[in-house]
């Protein structure tokens, strides 16, 4: 244990550290870095982490009043036996896929885009502006809305992006704070110029029929098809093009990338701009397929879900799509828990955070070998 410290602490010649006594220690944990780990073992650890995370979540749900026997029913049986529920999962999956792929593209170049919600707000505003001001003929309305949404999202991300690339301003904080700015601007519109004149509620007037994303039958919405198309394009971009290879370079070793002449600034710029556009399209999809208008809170919670999806998918767009569908299951179940057990929707956020924490913690075992040294 530590020796007497009072005099040592004030004396100028005191050693930086006092001696510790010996003989009471049993040993200590020693860490060794692993150079390599077999994919199977990695998958096993990941699976264990997911089981632990889900186990803690289940315990929380039970503590909050859900019967243990009902858990399985709520999350698995209900969702996959009932076509109605399956439909809502696929419906919910579309915006989640967009934000997941968006986060993955930004994180690939180590741009921490925490402004997904702000970009979604601007996506919604861009799309609604087209509807509100009647821009273009009816036939081109949907593509125009998409274009405006994407441009608005890109415009919103370009500020933190430029600050980061040019001045090395921390983008984590800037993107996050811009969410609050965007939200206040949304309220300004919804309580002001865009207030629905029909019922005086703070949401925009209803979109007309040709401004809404149609259902394609079999419970599949065109929003989901759009999400899949953009996922495929992003997947192709990062896996099969030179640009994708560059993003990997920038992510893994940006000094090396600089040394061999990779245009780091340009790669970061393009990747992050695409991220902003995809987040904005998530906002567009919710406005045009789910709500049919611009509302006050359509973006809530998607920011973190995007981060979670990208993190679990290791920034791979195709994997992000799969994870997004699983998160959609969680969202839909969370809503039904809200209705039947009065459990706040915040539970969904908590479960997502627990899963991220347990998976992040499990990477410790993938990177280190732990010994007990005597």
């Amino acid at each position, binding site marked *: 244990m530590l020796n007497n*410290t009072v005099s*040592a*602490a*004030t004396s100028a010649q*005191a*050693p*930086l*550290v006092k001696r*510790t006594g010996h003989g009471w220690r049993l040993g200590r944990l*020693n*860490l*060794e*870095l692993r150079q390599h780990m077999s994919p199977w073992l990695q998958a096993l650890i990941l699976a264990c982490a997911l089981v632990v995370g889900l186990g803690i979540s289940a315990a929380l749900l039970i503590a*909050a009043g859900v019967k243990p026997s009902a858990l399985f029913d709520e999350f698995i049986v209900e969702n996959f036996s009932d076509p109605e529920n399956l439909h809502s999962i696929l419906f919910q999956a579309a915006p989640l896929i967009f934000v997941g792929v968006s986060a993955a593209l930004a994180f690939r170049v180590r741009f*921490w885009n*925490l402004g997904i919600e702000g970009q979604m707000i601007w996506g919604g505003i861009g799309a609604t502006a087209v509807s509100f001001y009647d821009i273009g003929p009816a036939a081109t309305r949907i593509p125009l809305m998409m274009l405006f949404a994407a441009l608005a999202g890109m415009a919103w991300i370009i500020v933190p992006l430029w*600050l980061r690339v040019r*001045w*090395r*301003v*921390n983008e*984590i*904080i*800037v993107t*996050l*704070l*811009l969410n*609050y*700015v965007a939200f*206040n*601007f949304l*309220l*300004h519109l919804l*309580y*002001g110029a865009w207030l629905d004149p029909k019922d005086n509620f703070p949401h925009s007037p209803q979109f007309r029929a040709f401004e809404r994303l149609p259902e394609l039958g079999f419970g599949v919405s065109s929003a989901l098809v759009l999400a899949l198309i953009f996922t495929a394009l992003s997947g192709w971009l990062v896996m099969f093009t030179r640009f994708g290879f560059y993003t990997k370079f920038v992510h893994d070793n940006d000094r090396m990338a600089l040394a061999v002449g990779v245009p780091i600034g340009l790669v970061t710029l393009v990747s992050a701009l695409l991220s902003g556009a995809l987040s904005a399209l998530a906002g567009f999809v919710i406005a045009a397929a789910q709500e049919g208008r611009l509302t006050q809170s359509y973006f809530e919670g998607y920011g*973190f879900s995007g*981060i979670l999806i990208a*993190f679990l998918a290791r920034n791979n767009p195709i994997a992000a799509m799969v994870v997004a569908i699983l998160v959609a299951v969680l969202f839909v179940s969370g809503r039904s828990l809200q209705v039947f057990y009065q*459990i*706040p929707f*915040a*539970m*969904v*956020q*908590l*479960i*997502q*955070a*627990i899963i*991220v*924490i347990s998976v*992040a*913690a499990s*990477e*410790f075992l993938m*990177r*280190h070998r732990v010994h007990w040294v005597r």
Partner: protein
Amino acid sequence: MLHFTVNWLAGTPSFAAPYALAALGLIVSERAGVLSLGAEGFMLVGALAGVATELELGGYPSIALLVAMLAAAVVSLLFAFLVVFLRVNQVIAGLAVVFFCHGLTSLVGTLGGWTNRAITGMHAVAIWPLSEMPIVGKILFTQDVVVYLTIPIFFLVNYVLTRSMLGLRLRSVGENPEAADASGVSVSLYRLGAVVAGSALIGLAGGYLSVVDVKLWVPGISGGRGWIAIALVIFARWQPWRALFGALLFGGIEALIPRIAAAGIQLPQYFLLMTPYLATIAVMVWAAVTKFGRSNEPAALGQPHIREERR
């Protein structure tokens, strides 16, 4: 005009106190090399714990504030365990903890029935006879206890950080963990302690928001103040007194917002509500463009330390 200015300046300290305390807490943990992005979450935990304590005890705001500190410190153990012992990426861990706290507090607040219930909270204490002085008395000596305590807390933390062995070791862990480790300082222990102590201060900031300022708990009550505090620390070059100055600046901006509307000046209110966030971004840009104090950043900020890993 004088009346307006005096009222505004008198209102500033109570808006500045949460920024000041949170920034101070962040400085403690960042000086030890841990980027505590979880600040926003710890503030929420402190805010809920404070209100819940006061509702359950039926008063005692000072105990409520202590519980707020304790609760934030306990939750920060999770974050500290992740980043200090498991070496999880500090950004990922910080974000996950923020959202964990978001979810946890709105869940617990609802299940405990503490949401949207007004409390009596803490009132301002006039220090007579100083409070009777013209102008200065109202601005400086009719504040609440926490505002008065903030100054000694700053003295104490600044002294410990810069003038004590404890502070020297703590900073050595943040500047050069390998050297600190070689001279026998336990990097993990110091970082753990710094995170927990810093989070207690952040929890106090959160408790102040709900118990003293708003006198109410609603989910997300901190409204980005934790993030603003993180920016404030960068602006303050990781130095406590500069952080206090920055906090007063932001408190001043925030105190101005309701007064502009009350004075009958017509400005679009949602644009006014954007100003603290825009001002934060402006300050960060200014600090980056002028390269202000970049070299003051703790050299090992955000880097995990693992003894067996040689660089």
